[in-house]
């Protein structure tokens, strides 16, 4: 079976590292990674716990396919109670760290308590120990990783760590691995920082050898890779243009949130798009995009590697930013760009570099800056408070705020609270474009109706990675549906949410789902793990995971009242584009969704739903 069969429990208060066997019943019921770690988390943690207290726990988890030859099998997730949201948090990352942990022989690491002083965890196969990190505290991600490699004299160590944003208490701080891959959302990095845990450094040389049916697995993974290669999206589109290819599409259909969702189309979209990243610059004749990059075992390779124009104001005489590094993905380009009306591609790339360098979520950061700019234009926030003029469209304000937020300095301390707390503090809570405290990603739900329901019901707050109905409503995957209607969207959202939970628990990347269905994942999981993983069983597991997360949130105090959208999206119609005149019709979708879920009118699981799902 592809599970390592072993978890590492680290008591940060006592400074101990203990190996314990994986609960194999739970592994069969929840697969791994998101599902399995959330099972451990919800069994062990009081839902009412303060996310930043020692009583909160935080788990790094792989899936059974992590570290195997399955395409994209390099994923891991960080599971905790989110600092930004107070809801269950599960942030997923690629790169190479997850596979390294698995090859060291561990399925997951559970951290509990709080260390009295900064530490990092060092793992070399079976051996794990906590080491002093006083010398690392105060360092960025970009300084921490090479410093650990140098200390241990091993360049092949993989590092998952926090930067200065988490240390400074930014509530949407991320966990970063391999310098620019992020478990980005909900403030999982903030929780890591609250425990005085700076980094997890891993070296694994054992491989993943315990595949249940090796020949069957090789056949299944080979066939699945062919599906990815033959598919126009995963075989050609994503490698060449990355996720950024969406910028012009979403703008064209009138669903690109612009200037804090005041508008749904951005006149500068073409300037910050995938196509723009390919265009040679006038200054140096080189494009912003240097190359694409793949994570461990990935046969798609959608990652963007970019280089900033050395003459741009952000990096003049700053050679430390002249290297090629993680470039703009669609969500970051939107949040740093359209959400603020900024169309300077180099400035966005720089802000994105800073987010990676010091570990904070560009979506929540950019969207919070959007709220700040609106408050500035309303006269609520002044230059004297902010330290800079901050109208919509100001690239200089954006990059200035990024630098402040990275270190928790000046007004960056307040931007680090996120838009919900910031707008409430200044008397305009309606201007926070968020659900359950987490800021929206890059799709306006007036122009893509199903996403309104997906956002409102997402278990980790507003998120595109919990039920990506954009695939169907806009891109025609697996079938095209009309983005402007609410009919049929309750079932669509539920189907996407449940299937996504399986992808996120298997150890593979969600982007495979542009070509794969669960029918392509099932043979890989069955041959790797157990023939009990039938397609029917996987569908049931996905639904079980969703409801387990929901149940935790309900016990944490969330209810149907939190399954809503900001007033702006429910009452202010889109001004332009195909959705002109439309608001989001959440009230038309939510009751049907609850019914399909088997929840009562308060959004709680009915007894028969619990019984059916084994919860």
């Amino acid at each position, binding site marked *: 079976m592809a599970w390592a069969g072993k978890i590492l429990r680290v008591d940060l208060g006592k400074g101990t590292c203990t190996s314990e066997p994986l609960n194999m019943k739970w592994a069969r019921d929840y697969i791994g990674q998101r599902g399995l770690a959330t099972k451990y988390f919800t069994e062990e943690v009081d839902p009412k716990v303060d996310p930043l207290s020692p009583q909160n726990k935080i788990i790094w988890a792989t899936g059974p396919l992590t570290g195997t030859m399955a395409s994209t099998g390099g994923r891991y997730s960080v599971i905790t109670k989110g600092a930004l949201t107070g809801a269950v948090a599960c942030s997923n990352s690629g790169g190479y760290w997850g596979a390294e942990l698995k090859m060291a022989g561990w399925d997951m690491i559970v951290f509990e308590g709080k260390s009295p002083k900064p530490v990092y965890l060092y793992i070399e196969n079976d051996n794990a120990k906590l080491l002093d990190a006083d010398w690392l505290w105060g360092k960025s991600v970009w300084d921490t990783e090479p410093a650990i490699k140098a200390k241990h004299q091993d360049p092949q160590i993989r590092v998952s760590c926090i930067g200065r944003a988490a240390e400074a208490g930014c509530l949407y701080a991320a966990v970063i691995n391999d310098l620019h891959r992020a478990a980005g959302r909900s403030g999982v990095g903030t929780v890591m920082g609250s425990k005085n845990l700076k980094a997890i450094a891993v070296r694994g040389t054992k491989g993943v050898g315990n595949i249940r049916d090796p020949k069957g697995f090789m056949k299944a993974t080979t066939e699945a890779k062919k599906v990815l290669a033959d*598919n*126009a*999206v995963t075989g*050609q*589109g*994503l490698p*060449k*243009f*990355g*996720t*950024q*290819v*969406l910028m*012009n*599409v979403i703008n*064209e*259909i*009138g669903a690109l949130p612009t200037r804090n969702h005041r508008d749904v189309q951005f006149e500068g979209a*073409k300037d910050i798009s*995938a*196509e*723009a990243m390919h265009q040679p610059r006038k200054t140096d004749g080189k494009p912003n995009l240097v190359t694409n990059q793949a994570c461990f075992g990935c046969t798609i390779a*959608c990652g963007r590697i970019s280089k900033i124009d050395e003459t741009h104001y952000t990096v003049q005489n700053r050679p430390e930013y002249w290297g090629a590094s993680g470039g703009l*993905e*669609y*969500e970051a380009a939107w949040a740093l760009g359209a959400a603020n009306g900024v169309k300077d591609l180099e400035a966005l790339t720089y802000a994105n570099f800073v987010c990676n360098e010091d570990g904070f979520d560009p979506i929540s950061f950019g969207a919070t800056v959007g709220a700040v700019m609106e408050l500035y234009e309303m006269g609520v926030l002044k230059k004297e408070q902010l330290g800079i003029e901050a109208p919509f469209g100001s690239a200089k304000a954006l990059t200035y705020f990024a630098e402040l937020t990275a270190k928790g300095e000046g007004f960056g301390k307040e931007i680090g609270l996120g838009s919900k707390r910031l707008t409430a503090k200044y008397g305009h809570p309606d201007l926070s474009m968020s659900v359950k405290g987490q800021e929206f990603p890059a799709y306006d739900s007036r122009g893509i109706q199903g996403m309104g329901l997906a956002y409102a019901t997402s278990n980790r707050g507003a998120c*595109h*990675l919990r039920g*990506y109905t*954009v*695939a169907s409503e*806009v*891109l*025609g*995957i697996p079938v*095209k549906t*009309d983005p402007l209607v609410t009919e049929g969207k309750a079932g669509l959202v539920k189907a996407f949410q449940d299937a996504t939970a399986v992808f996120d628990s298997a150890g593979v990347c*969600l*982007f495979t789902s*542009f070509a794969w269905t669960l029918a392509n994942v099932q043979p890989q999981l069955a041959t790797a793990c157990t023939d009990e993983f039938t397609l029917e069983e996987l569908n049931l597991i996905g639904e079980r995971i969703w409801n387990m997360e929901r149940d935790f949130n309900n016990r944490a105090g969330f209810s149907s009242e939190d399954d809503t959208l900001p007033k702006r999206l429910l009452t202010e119609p889109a001004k332009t*584009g*195909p959705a002109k005149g439309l608001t989001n019709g959440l009230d038309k979708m939510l009751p049907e969704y609850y019914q399909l879920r088997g929840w009562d009118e308060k959004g709680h699981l009915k007894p028969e739903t619990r019984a059916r799902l084994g919860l």
Partner: protein
Amino acid sequence: MEITLKLFATLGDYLPEELNGRVRKYNELQIEVDEASTVQAVIEQFNVPTALAHLVLVNGVFIPRHARANSRLRVGDELAVWPPIAGG
């Protein structure tokens, strides 16, 4: 009549840099088409492979594959075409 043709992602290769004195800007080109032109006719005129014309929008509204041969364009329309794409 004049319309705007937008070819994105890999289809950008099918959009000429200049046509009848009009210069391409980014992925857009103003073009002259006959009054009776359909969506499908313009796609074929620029040699865009039909199989790759996956996401076809007129003024942001999706035109299903089966309707393209009968969808007549009007002056000022914006026709945008993408191959199969995704992201997130």
